[in-house]
């Protein structure tokens, strides 16, 4: 089974070196072969299980609390202007 690595790199926003790309393509294609049995299962309308436990929302009191300071959040950004994250322009 052929894996389109160009599309996959676009989807994951992940640049690969030519060597990585060749190696991972081989590995992913081998993995797909290994998944063939699961893909061939006839599970009809068996229910999906996205989480092992039933979630119950735990709500705190509806009161105003201190929010995380902008400076604290921006300290993790590779670049910022003191107010917003800074990124390369996407238009002139």
């Amino acid at each position, binding site marked *: 089974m052929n894996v389109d690595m160009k599309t996959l790199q676009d989807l994951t*926003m992940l640049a690969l070196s030519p060597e990585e790309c060749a190696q991972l393509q081989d590995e992913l294609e081998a993995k797909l072969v290994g998944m063939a049995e699961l*893909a061939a299962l006839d*599970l009809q309308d068996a229910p999906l299980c*996205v*989480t*092992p436990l039933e979630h119950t929302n735990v709500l705190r009191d509806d009161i105003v609390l201190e929010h995380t300071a902008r400076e604290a959040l921006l300290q993790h*950004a590779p670049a910022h202007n003191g107010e917003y994250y800074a990124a390369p322009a*996407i238009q002139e």
Partner: protein
Amino acid sequence: MTALQLAAAIAAKKVTVADVTAQYLEKARASANFVAINESALEQAAQVQAKLDAGEALSPLAGVPMALQDNIFVQGMPCACGSAMLEGYMPIFDAVVVEKLQAAGLIVIGKLGMNEFAHSPQAAAAVTAGEIPLALATDNRMACAEHGVWHIKPTYGAVSRLGLVAQVSSMDAIGPIARCVEDCAVLLEIIADCNVAQPVGSNENLPEFPHALAACEIIACAEFGANLQKFDGVSLGKRSTKAENLSETYKFSRGEGFGLATKRRVLFGSLMLAGDNYELYYTKALQVRGQVKDVLTSISAIELPVDEAHNCLANLAGLPAIVKPDGQQIMGAAFTDIALAKGVTA
């Protein structure tokens, strides 16, 4: 000496919290298993000692030093998850488990290394070598079985994940590592958010689940890839200097920041969610998960080897598993974690 024995010696004033903390800090500084040291540990030790001297009842492990896998937030200590992408990242709040440890009087002396966004052989190695009496790590069954130490992979949801760097959101679980199961059980009771001590029933036989491992890998990688989207070189993570536009910023930053094993998981997860593959693989993986969970709901306690084929069952169904030093694990019903651990020693 076990962690409980150490705490008893502290309570009996045979040793001070500061002396014990200093002793383990020295070991941690000399160890390659540690990636960060808590420089405030001695100060915290003095605070805990003062509370104990004032007669305050903290916990059965008060004063005991411990360490955390490097994917758990401690304010003021770096948290890199073993990744170049997060090198130098400093959390701005404590994880809920860290708040609970502090309230219980345990002293976090440092962070233990890990494979990039994965397991922590270093946590298992540090406990085995006596470099630290206790550690917390996310599902570390393989490494703990290899090193011959106890570990509890708790029931999913029993321990808060707030302040844990998300990897596989529907499976992530923080659990204790120690050289005896009693230490693990007491530490789990301290960090758990709910009753994890419900009684267990009798042992039962486990049916075969031939597709469980494939289903687990698909779900885990899909969630892993989604969780790592936030590391993009713009709001979080290191930014590539080679990029000339926004798209390249994302791609090059992630390409340079992630290691090969992480890229493999991200790509596989995305492949499983793309186009027709969503129905062909991902949906079926969720259906298999449902079948596994339905069957395992009736299981009370069962002994299994620690390996990928069996580890995935507790992950898919969110069940607790107690890893023993002999390389076996006891998997049980949800929220029976402590009873399972006590049953192991009975």
